[in-house]
Structure formats: C-alpha cells, structure tokens
C-alpha cells in the first residue's frame, strides 16, 4: 500500500488567493463575506455572499481566448490548479499516464446555462453557442486541467454537492494508495453567486437572510439561520510518498484516511441522529489509525440550524464524548462562506496548513454559543496547538458524507 502526501496547493477564495495568503487570513479571522456585487439584489431576500474579489483569469495563467470559452467555475479550478502544480514542482517529473485529475463541481456551469437559455428563448435555437455544452458540463474543470498539464492518467470529476471536493480528494488518495497513479490534482470549484442559484437556495430556506456580513455566516452560534454562499476553488497535488521523496518535493501533510457514506434518508435534510456522518468520521479515523492523538476537525459547519447540531452529534458518536470535547473544531465557513463543491478543497488546505504550522484557525463571530453545539469550536481567535491529525468533513445534499484525514509529517 502506498503512502500519499500533499506536495502542492492552490486556492481561489473569498479570503484571498494562494494557499499561504488564504491560511494567513484564516488565522487572522478575516471575513470574506460582504454585500453581493454580482447582481442587483432588489427583490431578493439574500443580500450577502462570499465573493472572490478581483479575479483576473489572464493574470492567473488562463489566456483571454480560453477564458471566454470557459465558465467561471472552471476558470477558478484552472487558476487554483495552476497554483498547486507550480507550488508542487511536479511538472515534468511524472509520466503523463501516471498523472491524474480528480476535480469536481457541485453544480457546474450554471451561469452559462442561464445565459444560453436566455438566447434560446429570446432568439431561437440557432443562437445557442456551440460552446454551450462544453462550457456548462460539470466535468469540464477536470477536462481543462488535464489538457493543461497533459495528465493522461485517471480522471474523475466528482459530483456530490457540498461534499464534492472531499470525495474527490478521498478518491484520489485511494487511487494513489492502491497504485493506480503517481500523482493526482484533486479538489473542486464552484461559481454560482448568480440570481438563479441564490433564488433557488433561498427559496429552500438554506441561506442566511442577514444583511450584516458580520452576523450572517454563524456556525455553531444560536443566531445561525442558514449558510452564506461562497465561491472559488481549492486544489491539491496528491503524490505517492516515494515519488515525492525521490524528487525532493516539499510536503505539507500526509493523507491517511477517508470515509465515504450516504445518509440514504432525505434529499436535503441530514438524518437527525447523524449516523451517516458519524460513520464517515469513523471510517476515516480507522483508516488513519487514530489512537487519541491531538486532533483538529475542520467541520462542515455551514451555519444552518440542522447541520451544526447534527454534525456535533456525529462527532461525539464517532470519537466518544470525552475525545470529542478534547478536539479542536472550527468552521472556516464563518470566514469564506460555503464554497459548495469547492469547500472541501480549501478546507483540506486549511487542515494541511494547520498541521504544518501548528495553528488552528478560528470560527469567527461565534459570540452566542448554542447549548446543543457544546464542543470546542475555537471561537473568534486562532490557537496554537501541536495537532497531529486533522479531519475535514463535508456533508452534501443527497445525504453525501465525506471525511478525509491528514497527518502531520
């Protein structure tokens, strides 16, 4: 069985681009949430989001002609992948057929879908762009990244809503662990701060209607009333340990466990006892060989009333009450908003950085703790801690649960 390490990381997020800037801002408690600027929110109940600021595709390494034919979610993915691959220094050291891409999106090119639908309805079928399909389909982040880096090995874009990135990273880990690839670019991307998506999530009562950016994304707080939509991409280069060592690569952390389960209960609501999520935690801990070492959990922690309560239960179920209380837990969504299919990517990066630097980022704006969420959520200020193992959990619509485990190296 191969060991798998993280040798490169890239981030496009509401709290900054680049893994170092991103983590630095997380530890400082920088809030990336603000009023929606992408469209006029007149008539919308939702007023705030975690927008990526000042994204420049050309500056990120995507030429103008390609950017025009690529939906924003895939541009974010490519930009983060370019950062991650550059950071890893892997280009040219891995055989193309042993180099893979596991990059998904929860939703895909919804903006493109809307634009082309308008053309169809207003101007007829002859005016729908020939680039509509390849821009819109959710696998095209992976396709474009594979083309960019000539990665001819396993390619698998995951679609499990908000658990997308964590499943992508977990599956990539397994693929390298079992010897089917030497390195895989893994993670996810999302770009749906658009009227249709905001209206849809809003009408299912999933989103916070707060107009105050400092009191909107409130994981584990009594005031929490829905998540705040974020966007961006988080991409990691996972690499077989021996391959990384042979080329003298820097290593952020080791990937040591993965749990993948489904609630099989409801299309959007989590199962109230948290059994499916707890099992995903247990599977990841078991594969990681957890033995009571100092633990950080980057929780899914969306700030919906149900999620945070059920996730707390799931953590207790998986770890036992005592160890659950000892664990440092935070929701970086308090700063990034919920980046949906990209969330697990940036949160895995937060975990890797937390292990590397011995600093746990906080849950900000946690001023009024919920008695039903009674664990240590690292409120409002980062803490230094010699953590040895980090878990990142992602729980998606459809009942998808994914937990990955990273170990300090």
């Amino acid at each position, binding site marked *: 069985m191969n060991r798998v390490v993280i040798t490169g990381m890239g981030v496009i997020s509401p709290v900054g681009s680049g893994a170092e800037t991103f983590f630095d801002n997380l530890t400082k408690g920088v809030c990336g949430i603000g009023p929606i600027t992408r469209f006029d929110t007149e008539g919308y109940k939702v007023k705030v989001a975690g927008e990526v600021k000042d994204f420049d595709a050309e500056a990120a390494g995507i030429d103008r002609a390609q950017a025009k034919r690529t939906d924003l979610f895939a541009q974010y993915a490519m930009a983060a992948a370019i950062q991650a691959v550059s950071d890893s220094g892997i280009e040219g050291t891995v055989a193309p057929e042993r180099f893979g891409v596991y990059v998904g999106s929860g939703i895909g090119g919804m903006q493109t879908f809307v634009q082309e639908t308008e053309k169809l309805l207003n101007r007829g079928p002859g005016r729908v*762009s020939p680039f509509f399909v390849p821009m819109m389909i959710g696998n095209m982040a992976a396709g474009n990244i594979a083309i960019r880096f000539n990665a001819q090995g396993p390619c698998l874009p995951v679609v499990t809503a908000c658990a997308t990135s964590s499943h992508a990273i977990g599956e990539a880990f397994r693929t390298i662990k079992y010897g089917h690839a030497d390195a895989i670019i893994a993670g996810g991307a999302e770009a749906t701060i658009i009227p249709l998506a905001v209206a849809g999530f809003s009408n299912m009562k999933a989103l916070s209607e707060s107009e105050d950016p400092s009191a909107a994304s409130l994981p584990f707080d009594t005031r929490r009333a829905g998540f705040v939509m974020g966007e961006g991409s988080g991409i990691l280069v996972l690499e077989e340990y021996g391959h990384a060592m042979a080329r003298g690569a820097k290593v952020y952390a080791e990937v040591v466990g993965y749990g993948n389960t489904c609630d099989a209960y409801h299309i959007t609501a989590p199962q109230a006892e948290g059994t499916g999520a707890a099992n995903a935690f247990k599977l990841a801990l078991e594969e990681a060989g957890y033995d009571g070492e100092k633990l950080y959990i980057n929780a899914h922690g969306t700030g919906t009333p149900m999620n945070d309560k059920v996730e707390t239960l799931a953590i207790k179920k998986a770890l036992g009450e005592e160890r659950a209380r000892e664990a440092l837990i935070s929701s970086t969504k308090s700063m990034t908003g919920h980046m949906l299919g990209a969330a697990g990517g940036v949160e895995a990066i937060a975990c890797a950085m937390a292990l590397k630097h011995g600093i746990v980022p906080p849950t900000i704006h946690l001023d009024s703790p919920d008695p039903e969420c009674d664990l240590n959520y690292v409120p409002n200020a980062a803490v230094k801690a010699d953590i040895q193992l980090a878990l990142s959990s992602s729980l998606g619509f459809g009942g998808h649960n994914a937990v990955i485990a990273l170990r300090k190296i």
Partner: protein
Amino acid sequence: MDNVFEKIVETIVDAKGIDAASVKPESTFKDLNVDSLDIAEMVMTLEDEFGITIELEEGIATVQDLVNLINERIAG
C-alpha cells in the same frame, strides 16, 4: 468584400487571441487552429452581422472560402 474579410479577421482574432496580421485570405482554418466549434460560433456572429443565413458546406477550408460563401449569400 473587404468588409466581409475584415469582419472574419476580427472574429477570429477575438475568439483565438491571435495577431490580426497572421490571418490572410489563403490561411486555412487548420493553420489558424480554428476548429469546428470556432467555425460554428463564427458563422453565428457573421449571420447576425450581415443578416443572412449560412449553411456550412463541405470544403470550407480557407478564410477566402468563407468570404466567398458569405458574399454569395449577401448577393442573394
């Protein structure tokens, strides 16, 4: 005639991010790295521009071939 050629050049430059000087009447779409999706999109733009309908025929290989086809349609 010149107008049609110029519009095609403009469309290719816009779509592919290449230098206008590199697009010549005898340039093949293959040489310009203009693929079938690019051509389909370009035809839509040109249809709007000139108020015509174009059915792409086999054998449209060069920029001049496309200029000729459009001029035929404009002439009616």
